[in-house]
């Protein structure tokens, strides 16, 4: 028999009583609540339509498409090198990570493989963009719950990572650095030492956020046991990334998949959490930032020598064929299905973005929750609008 604390028991009774009141005493007329498309708490332009019974949601539906920019169609009129400039705007917080699967798919079709040095640097930049992405999530999480302080910490430390990416690639946000067959340039002088010191700062940031936010009693009571996704449901809805790992599924494409990247050269572990609630999703992401800093630190020690680019023709023509490559992006599994017809540009590209599948669970998940929890649950699911609408 499990022991339940007095406080937990009281809150359970209070919740039951509240439910009973809503159902019996306050037979309210249904109300439809529209959140968005412009709302300070939905980062981006997602619109949620929720039908309420008193304080409880009985039906909710996300309405996407306010940021639809037509990537899949645009790729058909761009050449292969031009597509990278387009696709790194899909998930705008971790831009470099968007280029990698597309370039890998093109390389697979062409039958070339990047040099070991290029693979190493790609992995480092991939993890840096993951850190830049998730560190902003950790700050933004506080804002969604009404605590504004963490976002200042997040923006402060994120700038260091952006400076690193800018030093290496020339772009703060959209690097457009990946080329078919390697990378545009080698790393700049002093990058390795600078990165080491920044990774130390980021680990301090993680400790700060853990003390400031995750240890906070209000934060815990707003997120623990809220928005629980069981393992089976998570798999049914095709969740990926930290949302799936927070439901206790040990799944990470970086480890499970054999692709031409350098994750297997580092010693790191996949973080999972058995609970599946909002807290678990946030906690898993925080730990993943820590793991990412560890991966970067280890890879910096072992960068092999040699060129960063293999010989490819000046005008790239990709032979006929179809290829699917997906990687574990900051938001989850992101993949490209590229169809080529022996032309300079792709014939068709299907983009599988993580957020689109992750918010498909929203109608199921929001059923029965209270209105203030809508925002918490959406924040913990963590989506980027460009990644949903593409």
């Amino acid at each position: 028999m499990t022991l339940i604390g007095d406080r937990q028991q009281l809150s359970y009774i209070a919740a039951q009583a509240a439910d009973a009141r809503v159902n019996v005493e306050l037979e309210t007329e249904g109300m439809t609540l529209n959140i968005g498309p412009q709302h300070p708490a939905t980062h981006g332009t997602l619109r949620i339509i929720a039908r309420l019974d008193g304080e409880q949601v009985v039906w909710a539906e996300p309405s996407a498409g306010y940021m639809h920019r037509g990537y899949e169609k645009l790729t058909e009129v761009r050449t292969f090198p031009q597509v990278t400039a387009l696709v790194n705007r899909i998930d705008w917080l971790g831009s470099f990570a968007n280029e990698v699967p597309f370039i890998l798919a093109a390389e697979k079709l062409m039958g070339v493989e990047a040099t070991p040095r290029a693979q190493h640097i790609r992995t480092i930049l991939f993890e840096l963009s993951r850190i830049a992405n998730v560190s902003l999530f950790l700050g933004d999480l506080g804002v969604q719950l009404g605590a504004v302080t963490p976002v200042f910490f997040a923006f402060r430390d994120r700038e260091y990572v952006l400076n690193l990416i800018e030093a290496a690639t020339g772009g703060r946000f959209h690097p457009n650095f990946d080329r078919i067959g390697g990378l545009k340039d080698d790393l700049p002088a002093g990058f390795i030492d600078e990165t080491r010191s920044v990774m130390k700062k980021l680990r301090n940031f993680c400790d700060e956020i853990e003390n400031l936010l995750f240890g906070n009693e209000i934060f815990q009571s707003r997120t623990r046991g809220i928005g629980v996704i069981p393992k089976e449901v998570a798999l049914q809805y095709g969740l990926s990334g930290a949302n799936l790992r927070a439901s206790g599924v040990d799944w990470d494409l970086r480890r499970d998949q054999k692709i031409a990247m350098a994750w297997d050269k580092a010693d790191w572990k996949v973080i999972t959490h058995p609970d599946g609630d909002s807290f678990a999703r946030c906690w898993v992401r925080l730990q993943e930032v820590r793991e990412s800093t560890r991966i970067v630190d280890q890879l910096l020690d072992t960068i092999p020598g040699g060129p960063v680019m293999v010989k490819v023709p000046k005008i790239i023509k990709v032979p006929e064929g179809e290829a699917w490559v997906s990687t574990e992006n900051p938001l989850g599994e992101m993949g490209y299905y590229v169809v080529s017809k022996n032309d300079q540009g792709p014939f068709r590209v299907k983009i599988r973005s993580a957020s689109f599948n992750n918010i498909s669970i929203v109608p199921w998940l929001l059923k029965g929750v209270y209105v203030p929890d809508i925002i918490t649950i959406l924040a913990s699911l963590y989506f980027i609008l460009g990644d949903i609408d593409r």
Partner: protein
Amino acid sequence: MGLVDRGRLPKPLTTLFNMGRSYSMWVYQWGLACCAIEMGAAFGSPRYDVMRLGVIPLPASPRQADLVVISGTVTDKMAPAIKRLYEQMPEPKYVISMGSCANCGGPYWDSYSVTKGVDQIIPVDVYVPGCPPRPEALLEGIVLLQQRIKNEDMGARWRGEGTVPMSAVDGESAERGGVPVVAG
């Protein structure tokens, strides 16, 4: 404010009002796409601290705002909502268009779903180019807007003539008249 109604305001008073307006701008932010993050870095981060310029970010509603920063891609589905919220802002109101997408469509110039420039829907005062512009560029855009407000004829705006410079104090901006400024 009978003086303003008649469209005649003594110049010293205008100068005083303009100074007050330019240093207490409430910004309603339209975080649309990638630029929203850079705007967040400019407005919400300790490094670029926008409040030192006399700009107050994050009002609760467009009805309290003087300035709106359109940051990111405007799609055809989003455009009616933008127009509606812009119309809810009280006069005098100003618009900064941030980033290539809001200026002209940017990388999506040939996309079927993107509005090629927010100036097709609402009038723009300052364009900030870049994809996305650095936070410093947005701050420069705000400084340019403040210069324009300081030199504005309030009577003309009240009569609905738009942004008309008060005098030729700043030769360049007087020459431009109501034409939008481009930062950078």
